[in-house]
């Protein structure tokens, strides 16, 4: 009896250890949220910097105590929007090719290429942007530098390709064969079937891919930092203007900032975090919807 009891207790203890390990993910999310918000909200709670000036300001000059991030939010949103505009159609059409048109061997090869593209670290995209895209933009730009919104858009459009391709491809492949067969039986061509039947049926999966792509674009730091120019002021007025997205503001100055300056970098993180949370919730909703339908 005693031995069985001891065994049972041991089993229970191990189960609790497993549970604790599983909860580390939850604890991490809570800790991340707490630490970023705690540091980021401090300047507004203690009134060391007014929240409105922070949110609406268009200048970031730590030396003259000006910390406005409105122009960064605009930069982040423009860059993400542009990247989606260019990257998503290419990505969806590539996904269509892989799952609907390519032979299984070619499809496999392209899938491998897409995975490889996903595996390239973001710094290398940045170096590529700095070495190829920035000089090219400089050639057509009216300004004296190539680092610009346009260069950022190109780099981000490339970077979201693998995310959108792989998720769109999975959801296109998940569309039941009968849908296609039914469409062919009604006399539709392959292209008509793809665009009128398969893509609408895979809509929610494709949307998930697009939103994850948005998340990747808005959270991208290192690649963007090398090609965006990081000006200290000014809402971008043309695609050749330099921008300073939220992410690069943090990465550029965190190393040496202190006091209110440092806290306001955390505040920048809070804004970024809120964007990401909205995106996460949307993805979660979409995935649930798909399961429900």
């Amino acid at each position, binding site marked *: 009896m005693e031995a069985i009891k001891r065994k049972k207790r041991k089993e229970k203890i191990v189960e609790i250890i497993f549970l604790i390990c599983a909860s580390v993910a939850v604890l991490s999310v809570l800790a991340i949220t707490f630490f*970023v918000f705690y540091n980021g909200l401090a300047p507004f709670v203690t009134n060391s910097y007014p929240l409105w000036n922070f949110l609406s300001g268009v200048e970031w000059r730590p030396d003259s105590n000006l910390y406005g991030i409105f122009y960064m939010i605009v930069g982040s949103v423009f860059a993400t929007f542009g990247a989606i505009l260019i990257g998503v159609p290419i990505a969806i059409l590539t996904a269509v090719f892989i799952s609907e048109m390519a032979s299984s061997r070619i499809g496999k090869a392209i899938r491998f*290429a897409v995975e490889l593209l996903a595996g390239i670290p973001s710094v290398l995209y940045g170096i590529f942007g700095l070495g190829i895209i920035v000089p090219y933009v400089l050639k057509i730009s009216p300004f004296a530098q190539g680092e610009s919104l346009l260069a950022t858009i190109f780099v981000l459009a490339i970077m979201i390709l693998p995310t959108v391709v792989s998720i769109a491809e999975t959801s296109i492949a998940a569309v039941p064969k009968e849908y296609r067969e039914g469409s062919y039986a009604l006399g539709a061509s392959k292209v008509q079937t793809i665009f009128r039947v398969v893509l609408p049926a895979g809509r929610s999966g494709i949307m998930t891919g697009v939103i994850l792509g948005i998340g990747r674009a808005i*959270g991208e730091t290192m690649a963007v930092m090398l090609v965006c120019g990081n000006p200290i002021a000014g809402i971008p007025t043309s695609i050749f203007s330099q921008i300073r997205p939220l992410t690069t503001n943090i990465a550029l100055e965190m190393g040496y900032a202190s006091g209110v300056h440092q806290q306001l970098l955390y505040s920048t993180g809070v804004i970024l*975090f809120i964007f990401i949370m909205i995106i996460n919730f949307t993805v*979660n909703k979409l995935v649930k919807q798909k399961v429900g339908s």
Partner: protein
Amino acid sequence: MSRKIKDNIVKSIIYLATAITLSVLLFILGFIFVKGIGLVNWDFLTRDYNEKVFYAFTQSEEIPMSIDTDTLSKNTPYDDRYETLTEGPIYIENIGAAVSKISYKNYTSEKEQFVISYIEKGSPLLNAKDSTGATINIKTDFILESINGESFENLTLDEVVSIISSQSGDLKIKVVQPGGGIKSNIITTLYMVLISLLVALPIGIFGAIYLTEYAKPGRIVNIIRFAAETLAGIPSIVFGLFGMAFFVVALNLQISLISGSLTVAIILLPVIIRSTEEALKTVPMAFREGSLALGATKLQTIFKVVLPCAVPGIATAVLLSIGRVVGESAALLLTAGTVSQIPGTLFSPGSTLTVQAYYIAKEEGNIELACAIGIVIIVIVIVLNILSRITSDKLDVFNKK
């Protein structure tokens, strides 16, 4: 317009899009290889990034040369793409080594220097000590800058040889260990991979076991799953902010190897949990039932039956994780720093390959060197990609038939 023409137009647009995706990949890889390949060589991989200056203390000793001059001139411990031999080599007996004058030119600098091109057996240079008494491992590519206070700047090789030959007794030689390599970054990356896996792997695997083997569907599982998904969606710069606030400041671990590794360990958690969970799910229920029917406890079943079957899946998780650590940069920039050195302890900073590539591209504007590091990174990524393909193919054995 007939349907056929319309269809063909649309089809060609699809082909074009696929071609763009593929050519972007090839273009990026091509760019990095073409720009960087000229700099990748053995010295690049084995040298430190920063030059190191030593004052070497030793005793002069007459050592005759044991090889003939032909063999001596064939010793060229320099890279002929950046360094051109201008004079020498000339063998100097009282230090038992040969010296050449070399003009060195790279992206940022151009200079003339005197390089040791051959060291004879028993040379006094081999047992040279620095001011603390530690042995300096002088090798054939070290640069000589002065001897007993007499600088070699702007001298010809003959003048240098006569200065060195005229010295006797105690020698104090200023030598420079050449830099420009990435050895320290490679080693920092390895440390980072090891430590973060050591932390994240057990937590992730046990967590996945809980989710698949113990938890009943319901609130707790949903919360844990949602947390893991949220973690996967958080951008790495936010992890960096957290690591900075928590590990660096609150736990006072400083910007260091350990802060970086722990931050990366959190980034790895969702990757490991997800792949392990998938692997555990492929193990057929009958295996577990058979084991339990034989009288094994749940724990025994998990460790002796289920986990061994899931090894390929866990291996995939490890490979994916290594890829993540190698590619990680924004979080490490804030938590492990940009110092290119081998971290002596867990609490000293060090930059990984990707952080170093960023630093060189951004702060020094040296795209060639950044691309050379990029080649090393891409080779690692491709190898990991192929290996993980092999391991994940092995996983499906139960369902294949």
